[in-house]
């Protein structure tokens, strides 16, 4: 059974100020299998984040339906973990309280929350930083806390919205490696939004290349490259060339449409 099912999704944003409707997503259907790592790849403004936000429940499709684990999505909830572009940690809580925030909402006692958080803090390599506050963490460390916080929900699905976009190249590579390791260990479904071709190819089991405005799925590419992925190997580069060509064509068509 598919873990996430998007059926004929259309999203129209109503721009009340300019009295104009914007077709952001045009008839997208997509199913994500259990334990799959799907990368949604597209340039900015292509609607990839909007699509993710619909799975998260922050936005509703104008037409079509979204189901996660067979149940229709009708709002945000703890059955799906989300990692944002900015870590969005509660600045007044130390690392371990941020990781265990869900348990705080569930009314767990402090000692129990502390114990439960440790496993996930260790998993993302933050042992020793349990009592640090978010203001004392680097960007990469903050994102680790965000990932640990999502993992603690033990969700069927983890949604990631360009979580490494703001990190430097070295940190980004480390984080990608660790994310793959965690995903392999936890066996969960990941939907990962990115605008980086390399990132999609390093991480995904499948890549959905999106067209921009209105957002459609241009091509679904299954990646059977062995892990850890060799970013300089010929097969990696074949895929990369293919995707870059798709994106280039797309840009060309857009410019022509703009001229016409």
């Amino acid at each position, binding site marked *: 059974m598919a873990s996430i099912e998007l059926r004929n999704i259309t999203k129209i944003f109503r721009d009340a100020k300019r009295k104009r409707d914007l077709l952001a997503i045009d008839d997208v259907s997509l199913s994500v299998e259990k334990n799959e790592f799907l990368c949604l790849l597209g340039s900015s403004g292509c609607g990839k984040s909007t699509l993710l936000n619909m799975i*998260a429940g*922050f936005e509703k499709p104008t037409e079509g339906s979204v189901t996660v684990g067979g149940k229709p999505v009708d*709002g*945000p*909830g*703890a059955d*799906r*973990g*989300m990692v*944002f572009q*900015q870590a*969005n*940690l*509660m*600045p*007044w*809580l130390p690392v371990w309280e941020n990781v265990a*925030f*869900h348990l*705080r*909402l*569930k009314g767990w006692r402090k000692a129990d929350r502390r114990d439960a958080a440790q496993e996930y803090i260790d998993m993302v390599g933050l042992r020793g930083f349990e009592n640090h*506050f*978010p*203001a*004392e963490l680097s960007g990469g460390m903050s994102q680790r806390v965000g990932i640990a*916080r999502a993992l603690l*929900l033990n969700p069927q699905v983890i949604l990631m919205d360009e979580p490494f976009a703001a990190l430097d190249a070295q940190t980004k590579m480390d984080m990608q490696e660790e994310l793959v390791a965690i995903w392999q260990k936890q066996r969960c479904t990941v939907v990962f939004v990115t605008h980086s071709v390399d990132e999609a190819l390093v991480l995904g089991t499948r890549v959905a290349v999106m067209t921009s405005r209105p957002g459609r799925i241009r091509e679904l590419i299954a990646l059977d490259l062995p892990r850890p992925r060799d970013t300089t190997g010929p097969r990696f580069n074949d895929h990369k060339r293919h995707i870059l060509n798709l994106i280039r064509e797309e840009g060309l068509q857009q410019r022509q449409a703009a001229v016409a």
Partner: protein
Amino acid sequence: MTALSKSWERAVVPLFILAAWEVFSRSGFLPAALLPAPSVVLHTWGDWIFGFDETSQGNTGRWLADALSSATRVAAGYGIAVVSGVLLGIAIGWWRWVERTVEPTLQMLRPVPPVSWIPLAIIWFGIANKPAIFLVFLGAFFPILMNTIHGVKTADRNLIRAASMMGATEQQLLRHVVFPAALPSIFAGLRIGIGAAWMLTVTAEMVAVKSGLGYVLWDSYYFLRYDLVLAAMASIGLLGYATDALIKVLMSAALHWQHGSTLQSREG
């Protein structure tokens, strides 16, 4: 060494002013009764507190009782203002319908100076604690309310999204995200509010109450006891300073997480 020289730095200006004042008062340039020397004020103040030689006449040894009755009014009015200002501020900041229905009325009342309520306060509550508490409440309520609303409205939307993704209900969002996020702003309101509270206690005591530091101040003015007036002024200043310092201590304890991330935290 540096700590000592720093506290010395702080004391230079006040000590200089006191010394100049003492010299000026003793020079006989003005009648001594009009500007009593600091030593005289200190003496009278001492008698007001400890009652050793009745220089403060009927007030001798009554300082603690006077200070306590003023402080009680501040505590009562301020306490009501804190609870109602924070709760109402959160409601106005969070729910649009509360904002639409309640806020316009409050905004119309806000520009009315609290002291202009004195006549009505006396008619409604008589001459006693109640009109003073009412005025203190009015003075402290609006700064606390406005700052709470501001704090709630400027709470990071992404934190609310993150929390609702972890299954937070609306009530939990308010308690675990919106309230802590608004806390720095709420504390700013609390500090403005405590200043207003002392100001209005003293004003109320001058007019509508027959006890407290403000009453002694005004009463001494009628009896031309400017040394007592000055002692009362100093007492009010000292208590105001102490309560503000208390709020600052609470603030740095509650907002310790800001440490190192804001300009303000440099002070501590």
